[in-house]
């Protein structure tokens, strides 16, 4: 079924009728109203707005990149580029037999360290709880941190990961994308690293333009053609 798209600002009535409100909209009687500046999408019976600005709101299961800002005797606190502070319990890193008297948190993660983590739990009543108990999670030893707008993360990933694959293949760099808009690029090849950084910044700056994959490809010097996603917004 066709997806209907439109530019909206807060207060705009997107549609009237029996539709299900999803992200960034609210229901006022039978009207569905936008709450953000963005692009509204009506798909089957659901309505949502893809915002063009705004901060990161944590969601359970999101992969985020956090920076250690401190610790207590039982947990670390992380800056996750949000209005909430992320918590990583010490037991998550040291294991079940963690003892505050025996183990020193600073030995594993110190202030300023970057960590790839997953949001294990988050609701309105408490701050997001992080976990590193999964594949590819944990301390990030090397790489370059780039900050992009959290609303542009889906564009950097692309349809089924097409954009990020293109950049990784062309530059041989390893890119870890946090849903919070923090991206770590690492590579042994300095030229590839710089190219990958440039490509990520380009996606951030030009996320609203159509044919972005093609632009990125031509910047990276990749042949155009197969596997191009074109979201014409």
């Amino acid at each position, binding site marked *: 079924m066709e997806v209907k798209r439109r*530019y909206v*600002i*807060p*207060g*705009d*009535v997107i549609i009237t009728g029996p539709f299900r409100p999803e992200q*960034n909209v*609210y229901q*006022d009687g039978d009207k569905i*109203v936008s*709450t*953000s*500046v963005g692009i509204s999408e009506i798909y089957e019976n659901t309505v949502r707005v893809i*915002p*063009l*600005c*705004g*901060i990161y*709101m944590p969601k359970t299961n999101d992969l985020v990149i956090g920076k250690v800002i401190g610790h207590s005797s039982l947990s670390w606190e992380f800056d996750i580029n949000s*209005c*909430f*502070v992320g918590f990583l319990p010490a037991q998550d890193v040291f294991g079940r037999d963690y003892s505050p008297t025996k183990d020193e948190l600073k030995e594993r993660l110190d202030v300023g360290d970057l960590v790839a983590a997953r949001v294990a739990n988050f609701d*309105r*009543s408490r701050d997001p709880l992080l976990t590193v108990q999964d594949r590819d999670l944990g301390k990030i030893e090397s790489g370059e941190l780039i900050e992009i707008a959290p*609303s542009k993360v889906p564009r950097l990933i692309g349809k089924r990961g097409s954009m990020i694959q293109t950049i990784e293949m062309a530059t041989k760099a390893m890119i870890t994308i946090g849903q919070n808009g923090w991206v770590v690029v690492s590579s042994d090849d300095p030229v590839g690293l710089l190219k990958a950084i440039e490509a990520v910044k380009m996606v951030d700056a030009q996320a*609203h333009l159509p044919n972005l994959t093609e632009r990125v490809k031509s910047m990276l010097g990749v042949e155009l053609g197969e596997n191009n996603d074109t979201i014409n917004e």
Partner: protein
Amino acid sequence: MTQLMNENGIRCDGRKVDQLRNVSIKVGILKNADGSAYIEFGQNKILAGVFGPRDVHPKHMANQDRGILRCRYHMSPFSVTERKNPAPSRREIEISKVIKEALQPAVLLKDFPRTVIDVFIEVLQADGGSRCAALDAASIALADAGIPMRDLVSACAAGKVADQIVLDVNNEEDQEGQADMPIAIMPNLGKVTLMQLDGILTPAEYKTCLQTAIGGCKQIYEIQRKALMEKYFGNGGQ
């Protein structure tokens, strides 16, 4: 005393009774704020910057089940003809409060428990009706910061000058006129979020004055909308 209106119904600055001053809005002009706007409303020049949602300091102000909104309206020492003391005056504290209360119904604060949204408004040049202009800029700055809102807030004043109801009272008319009524509305929801009245009106005049002000707010809304659309979607945004 200056003549506020001539026999042809033309006001001291050359406007008709139902005419707004020139209004222009620019969105997102401050790099370090999460959202910002600059408005020129006649001779008013006002900057608004928004931060947040972010951690509340001092912590005891935080609300466990909803965010809080803080607002600071400040006039620069050079915004008026005689140097204004930069310390917050009684008037600035009042305007900060009414602007906060006018924005609160529009902002979906329940989405951000234990956080604060800070709105800073700096009047660079003042010319009557600065609270309305400040409110218009603040509402655009909030939208620019990506803060979920039920609707934008549009504000405009109306008043009574030389026994006539006029739209958008300027400085001279405010000083020497008979009444001044700033109004803010959420245009799509049709709800009033700010109403003040300084002066005396008969019930009939009051009704006309309110309708005139609401008409002005709707004109302002169109300008706000255009400014936001231009920032985010270029000229293609309708």
